[in-house]
């Protein structure tokens, strides 16, 4: 049964995942879940009509990584956050629930070194060939060498 209002949706979501859904700006919803329950949360939200996975953002917060799944329903964007540690940057793949995630997860692996378990094929996607293994450019501790020009 689809939820009629945001309040109903938020309450129902909180009952299962521990945190409600907040509208911080017009058509911009936010929530947070535990990373291990990402597949479950996305499947739950898909049933309520969030059918379009627009993007997955990865952010290096210094002491941990934050992943944000941007889901869309009827013009509203629901950004679902979760965090993982830097020591164990493991995240289950959501491609089983939302096949659109396939390249977005590959990109997270490329530029941040997030280990996506259960992904069909985590080969490099966007970094140039010959890019050294284990070097993740979007991590904060990686600095563009020599100001970037003629860097190799």
């Amino acid at each position, binding site marked *: 049964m689809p939820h009629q209002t945001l309040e109903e949706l938020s309450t129902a979501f909180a009952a299962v995942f521990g945190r409600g859904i907040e509208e911080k700006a017009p058509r911009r919803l936010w929530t947070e879940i535990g990373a291990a329950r990402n597949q479950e949360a996305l499947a739950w939200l898909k049933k309520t009509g969030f059918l379009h996975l627009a993007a997955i953002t990865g952010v290096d917060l210094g002491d941990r990584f934050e992943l944000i799944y941007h889901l869309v329903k009827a013009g509203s964007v629901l950004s679902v956050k979760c965090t993982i540690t830097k020591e164990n940057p493991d995240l289950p793949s959501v491609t089983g629930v939302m096949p659109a995630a396939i390249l977005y997860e590959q990109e997270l692996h490329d530029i941040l070194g997030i280990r996506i378990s259960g992904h069909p094929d985590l080969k490099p996607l966007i970094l*140039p060939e010959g890019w050294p293994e284990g070097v993740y*450019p979007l991590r904060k501790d990686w600095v563009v060498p020599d100001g970037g020009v003629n860097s190799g």
Partner: protein
Amino acid sequence: MSLASLIKWARLKSPWVVHYNTGACNACDIEIVAALTPRYDIERLGMIAKASPRHGDVLLCTGPVTKQSRDRLLRIYEQMPDPKFVVAVGSCACSGGVFNGCYSMSGGIDSVIPVDLYIPGCSTRPAAIIDGLAKLLAAFDTGKPVGFGIGAAPSLSEEPDKGGNNHASPNA
């Protein structure tokens, strides 16, 4: 008429152009393609876009040379027979442009191969491309420097230098 001057005449009248994008945003590339379309029509100057470097006289390069495209750029250059001329189209090709300081860049075409003609712009409009190429053709004829950017114009002398190359020394 000697063979050499026949070849020189043919090149002047009908240079074959190879176009290679080294990681550009495509703006300069579509302006190069626009140069082929009826408003600008570089074919009337005898220029034809050729896919294979082995048939090319002029290499039109766009883009700031990403790491991934660097080796390829070199291979294409090596595949082209002498005498050959390299044209950097757009600010990124000239110097890396706005992408200077980004990782995975080499920084301009002349960081990889010698460039004979620099046509700046972001992007370079078709009229500027035609103007630059016309100056290059004029340089074929007279052997005088093109007067645009750092590279000196090559001369179509009858005796190529020992390297089989008619270039002034590159700054790379």
